[in-house]
């Protein structure tokens, strides 16, 4: 609507006469949002929202509706129930949009408020619904400037005569990329009704950490392998018991600088995202060892701490029965991460066809670089959690003090 932070109140009133303007109270706003989200958690496990009242985007809540119809009824009815649930937390009736992508849903909600599109009023909620599969068609006649907040991108779109989203969608992707760079791919996909920003539900990640002292300190990387193996194996057991998987490993090495040169740091840290969530200790160990071999510590190691982050319930995946390669992508992914670590990520990748009819041969295809690209491949089948409710079994490596911590990180 054009209302911006710092704008005079009178100007804001003129732009949005129906809006209610409140005195700023970020703490209270954030608390209200948290309370609202807690209430919404009763409707859907898939929630995302900006909870910092000073940030743009505050006030928008995303709710994943997939599969909820059996519980709550048709989508407009769900929205109506959500509106009722939020009535006590919001200063006014919310505005809602339903779409196949985050962008389409946000645009639908924005347009519902202005009345630019016809919308049902579900209870107290102004709502616009984009039918499944119709996102591209819904977006097509809308201004292309809506694709990006960046004023420079908007100006370029205008300069190229791309005034509506449909025009951007019609052009070959290679043409957009040639003119907008890598961002062009994102713009093009967004215009075509493809998801560009995967939904990341709000949830409190859990961290697992364990450390071991090494006495005497170890100088060679092979010596570290033994210690790392014990830690990784212990975590693997723990994750299995939880029915969980981790997506990130952090290895911290405390260095013994007694006889080292002056510029050797006190510790060395390796942060390693994993190609896919896993509970396999051996896989984590091999990946971290590859990092250590590529960049060994500069002094003997006196203590090793392994921390696993982004721990979440392991998910099962339906495998395609007719693509025999699919079940092996997980293992391939790990292999390629190790190749990338050792030889450089730019050495490993896939090729993709961009536009087979482009006039120049070099414009017809592109690289999908880096082992992380394999994360887009279907994950191998993994059993869903068995529902065991037992407390995690904490495997204690023998010898020396250990610390086991389970932190529930603040959101």
């Amino acid at each position, binding site marked *: 609507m054009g209302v911006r932070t710092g704008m005079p109140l009178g100007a804001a009133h003129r732009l949005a006469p129906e809006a209610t303007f409140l005195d700023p109270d970020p703490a209270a706003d954030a608390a209200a949002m948290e309370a609202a989200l807690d209430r919404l958690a009763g409707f859907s496990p898939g929630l995302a929202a900006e909870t910092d009242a000073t940030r743009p985007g505050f006030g928008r809540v995303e709710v994943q509706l997939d599969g909820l119809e059996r519980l709550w009824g048709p989508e407009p009815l769900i929205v109506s129930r959500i509106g009722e649930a939020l009535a006590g937390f919001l200063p006014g009736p919310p505005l809602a949009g339903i779409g196949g992508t985050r962008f389409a849903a946000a645009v639908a909600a924005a347009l519902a408020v202005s009345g630019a599109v016809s919308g049902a009023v579900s209870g107290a909620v102004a709502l616009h619904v984009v039918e499944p599969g119709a996102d591209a068609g819904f977006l097509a006649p809308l201004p292309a400037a809506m694709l990006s907040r960046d004023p420079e991108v908007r100006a370029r779109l205008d300069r190229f005569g791309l005034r509506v989203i449909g025009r951007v969608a019609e052009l*070959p*992707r290679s043409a957009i990329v040639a003119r907008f760079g890598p961002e062009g791919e994102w713009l093009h996909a967004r215009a075509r009704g493809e998801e560009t920003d995967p939904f990341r539900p709000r949830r409190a990640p859990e961290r697992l950490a364990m450390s071991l002292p090494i006495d005497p300190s170890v100088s060679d990387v092979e010596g570290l392998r033994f210690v790392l193996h014990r830690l990784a194996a212990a975590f693997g057991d723990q994750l299995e018991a939880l029915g969980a998987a981790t997506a990130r490993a952090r290895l911290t090495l405390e260095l013994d600088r007694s006889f080292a040169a002056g510029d050797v740091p006190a510790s060395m840290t390796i942060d390693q995202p994993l190609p896919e969530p896993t509970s396999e200790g051996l896989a984590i160990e091999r990946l971290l060892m590859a990092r250590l071999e590529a960049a060994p510590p500069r002094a003997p190691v006196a203590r090793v701490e392994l921390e696993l982050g982004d721990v979440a319930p392991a998910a099962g995946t339906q495998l*395609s*029965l*007719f*693509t*025999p*390669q699919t079940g*092996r992508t997980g*293992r*391939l992914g790990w*292999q*390629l991460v*190790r*190749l990338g670590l*050792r*030889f450089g990520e*730019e*050495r*490993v*990748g*896939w*090729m*993709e*066809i*961009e*536009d*087979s*009819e482009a*006039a*120049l*041969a070099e414009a*017809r*295809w592109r690289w999908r670089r880096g082992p992380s690209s394999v994360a887009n*491949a279907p994950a191998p089948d993994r059993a869903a959690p068995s529902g065991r409710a037992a407390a995690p079994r904490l495997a204690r490596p023998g010898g020396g003090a250990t610390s086991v911590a389970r932190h529930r990180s603040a959101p």
Partner: protein
Amino acid sequence: MTTPPPSVQAALSSLRERWGGAAPHWGGEVVGALAVAPRPSPAIDPEGPPVAPGHLPASPDRAISTGFRALDAILGLGGLPRSATTALHGDGTCGKTTLALQAVARAQAAGGIVAYLDLARSLDPVEAVARGVQLDWLVVLTPGSLDEALAMAAMLLQDRTVDLLLLDLPSWSPDGVGISVSKLAERFNRLAALARRAGVQMLVLEPPRLPSVLAGALTQVAALRLELSRRAWIRLGRDVVGQRTEVRVARDRFGPPGRAAELRILYAEGGLRDVCLTRGELLGENASGSVGRLGIAGRAGIVPLAGVAPPGRSRPMTPTSAAWPSPTLLITTLPVPDDATSPSSLAPPSPAPGPQQSLRAVRGSADRSGRQAVDERLRSGREQVGARVGRPDRDAARGGP
């Protein structure tokens, strides 16, 4: 004389418009144009082993079809051996890359994942897709040196994460190696042994003029070594659209060496012209290595190459022309005569009825059918290597400048 189909008539008309008297004519007897190769008469190769339907090699568990029936027929296992190393050797445009990519497509069709060590930095994914390769299951590695390539290969083999490893060696240059030649040879030996133990198929594209130590090592480790040499260009009018290649079995641990087969490899580039590739009587040959300007009977000097249109949808170029599009890479399915490799053998076969597997077609071409290069093999026993296809070289007779 039979009347050509309307599409061929249109193509011939277009060629006549561009090339005038140099254009091929329909009718079997050609006047004022390049010679026409008679269509080979289909005959069963009397020397080859019976080939299973659908181009399956005689031992499908032990070998991958090359995609050329005549070549499969002379190989001990009826194809390229799994769990062993095959070396393809040849200079210049000989067809070894085509053969390798067809093997990749077949390995993938059988459920395999392929790693391509692209030392030569020349893999064309559009062409690969046209040959039936699935890019989703083709990992491409671009090592900085041969030493690095072998290290990458060793890692892949140790973990057994791929089924076929293709090592595309570039033209030999000592600067791009990284270690001594003798050490390289040792590494090759170890790599081949690792591949055997891991049950991974390895395919090496061997360039010419390797140091003898290295060439020797490759010869030793390869369970199958094929030597490819081009025998003739295949022309459509003036354009060179393919080649006739002889493939000789230099070594075969699973069968007798010394046998040979001839392959016809054609390069489709999209558009109306490709229809003509399916009509053998429109194609001509001249001996490989003959270079010189084409003269036209009855004219003195050289016919300048003006107004020759690129294939596909573009128009002839004149000195003052505006921009013309390059040859399109439309994906089209060509009608294939009986004696050519059928498109279904070129593309990965559909494994079973049911939900579509996630084969990725060329993006942006959702409304275009698949392009296939038309590969034609000679199955006539009369045309085994050693017997030249009998037709005088008319270009030599016409003479050049």
